[in-house]
């Protein structure tokens, strides 16, 4: 608020702290809060499957003592103690693990519970990765908190390089109008603010529903027929289940159907804002390239 005042004060504080032996680390989380730890985090609880993947990517998987249900990646995460689900955290279980850092999901965990955790003196870091850049910077920031900068920064760098490579390759490719299907009943897609939209654009696609107001809008079949996408990409219920796509096969008038551009991308690689998004991005880019070849 008042930078002229704050700067000298923080300079004094900094000087005072640098004299003491503790190495305090501070980062800014995705809610623009400053999160500080007296020493590197050694007991971490991750309150969303995505946060679990991020902290592992940051190279601090060994320090994770608690996760929530559906934390299924990487494999090691499955054997970590569960503290309930991301919508309802078992507060007792969490406190009993005596964490020094809790990674919360800004829009996924109930506010009542995250507020309560802060009242109880827990240190919370909120994640809310909304694009490639915040995924990478989350990895770096978490690595700073966990004292695993070397591994974390490397991983973030690889991720950024991978994204740049795709961007370079497809930025001049002829655009492909794409409908991305998040859910089947009700039919749901994503608007221009969603990170999946960014993946579509990265591959030279054009999200036909980018202009809708809601992040994950509910739409009807008619609007898909009206938009006539050149490719339909669906996540789906499982890693192999293509059921959602077969429903589109009866609409011969759809360009996507007539050219057989009904594609499946494993949802775990694209619907979670984690480093695996690069993998999903590569898959999607390949599919869109196929769509271009079928013109």
């Amino acid at each position, binding site marked *: 608020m008042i930078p002229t005042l704050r700067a000298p004060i923080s300079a004094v504080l900094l000087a005072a702290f640098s004299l003491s032996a503790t190495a305090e680390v501070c980062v800014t989380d995705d809610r623009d809060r400053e999160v500080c730890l007296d020493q590197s985090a050694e007991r971490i609880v991750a309150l969303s499957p995505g946060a679990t993947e991020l902290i592992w990517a940051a190279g601090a998987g060994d320090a994770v003592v608690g996760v929530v249900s559906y934390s299924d990646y990487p494999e090691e995460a499955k054997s970590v103690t569960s503290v309930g689900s991301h919508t*309802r955290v*078992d507060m007792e279980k969490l406190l*009993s693990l005596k964490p020094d850092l809790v990674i919360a999901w800004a829009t*996924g965990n109930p506010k009542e519970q995250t507020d309560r955790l802060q009242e109880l003196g827990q240190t919370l870091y909120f994640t809310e990765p909304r694009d490639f850049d915040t995924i990478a910077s989350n990895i770096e920031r978490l690595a700073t908190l966990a004292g695993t900068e070397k591994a974390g920064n490397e991983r973030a760098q690889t991720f950024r390089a991978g994204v740049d490579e795709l961007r370079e390759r497809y930025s001049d490719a002829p655009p492909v109008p794409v409908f991305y299907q998040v859910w089947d009943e009700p039919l749901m897609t994503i608007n221009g603010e969603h990170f999946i939209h960014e993946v579509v654009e990265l591959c030279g696609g054009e999200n036909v529903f980018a202009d809708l107001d809601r*992040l994950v809008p509910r739409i009807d079949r008619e609007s898909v027929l009206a938009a006539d996408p050149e490719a339909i990409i669906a996540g789906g219920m499982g890693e192999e289940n293509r059921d959602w796509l077969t429903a589109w096969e009866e609409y011969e008038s759809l360009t996507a159907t007539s050219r057989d551009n009904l594609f499946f991308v494993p949802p775990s690689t694209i619907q979670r804002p984690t480093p695996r998004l690069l993998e999903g991005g590569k898959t999607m880019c390949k599919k869109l390239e196929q769509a271009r070849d079928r013109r």
Partner: protein
Amino acid sequence: MTGAETLAQKRPVSVAVSPWRPFLPLVWLALFGVLALLLAVAVGSVAIPPAELWAVITGEGSSLHNTLVWELRAPRALAGFATGGLLAMAGALMQILLRNPLADPYVLGVSGGAAVGALAAMLAGTGAFLLSGSAFAGALLSTFLVFGLAHGTGSWTPARLLLTGVVVASGWGAVITLMLAVGPKDKLPGMLYWLMGDLTYAQTPWPALVLLVLVCLLVIPLGRSLNVLARGPLQAAALGVAVRPLEWTIYILASLLTALAVTTAGSIGFVGLVVPHMLRLVLGNDQRLILPACALGGGALLTLADTLARIVIAPEQLPVGVITALLGVPTFLVLLYRSR
């Protein structure tokens, strides 16, 4: 329960012996309530051995156990007890007011108004304090809306109040559905849990507890008039009860109780409908006894249910409404089957 029941069966005889004898079931229920509260504090997903629990109570426990017991379990148990008590009392009052055994605290739309207030606060992303305030305001708004509309220009009857309330409640229902349909995806789980009723939202138990005690004290002198009213307004009027003011008092009281209960823990179902009936089956229909019994019995049932909801599939947490129904339905059916 069996203790309470034998007492109830002896009651006609014992009234002649001592005027306090009929209130003995309250002592049993209070004991049951205390046991439920103790259980709620003693068990959870983290096991605390009895010796350690004693140390915590005497103020010598470890800091983790202190936090678990005093910051998490105790406030939640008390909030559960207060909410259950408020709901059961509100249900009993509504059943007398509307002379309809199907009446529950929510039938006149109080919870609908509160839900709209709470969900609006969630959509706006406000803090927990504003959420409670907004829910309470919604409940009061609904109460006065129904009050004003039922008053209308014509004559006033409980049937008219019931119809007005039910229609207003359906209106709220439509607004809730609309909010759920257009609400952002990430807010939906919180909204649904609130609608199912969930003590995770309980901030502080004190307002609800204080109101519970106050209303208990207030309804005891009203008990006699309520007993007469339960037999019908004509009889009540013939016996010198001011029916209309009494009915409005019941309506406002029941709405206030419901509003605070819903504000504390969302719309928890079942307790308000079934606990009064359950107690009437066992204790008879004397309002002087039933209303305080509802406060104790409803409180004990909800505390017990919430304790189970916390531990049944821990660390996953169940909504408390699931357990209240699973516990209450068989108990109620057994009581109903055995009556007469």
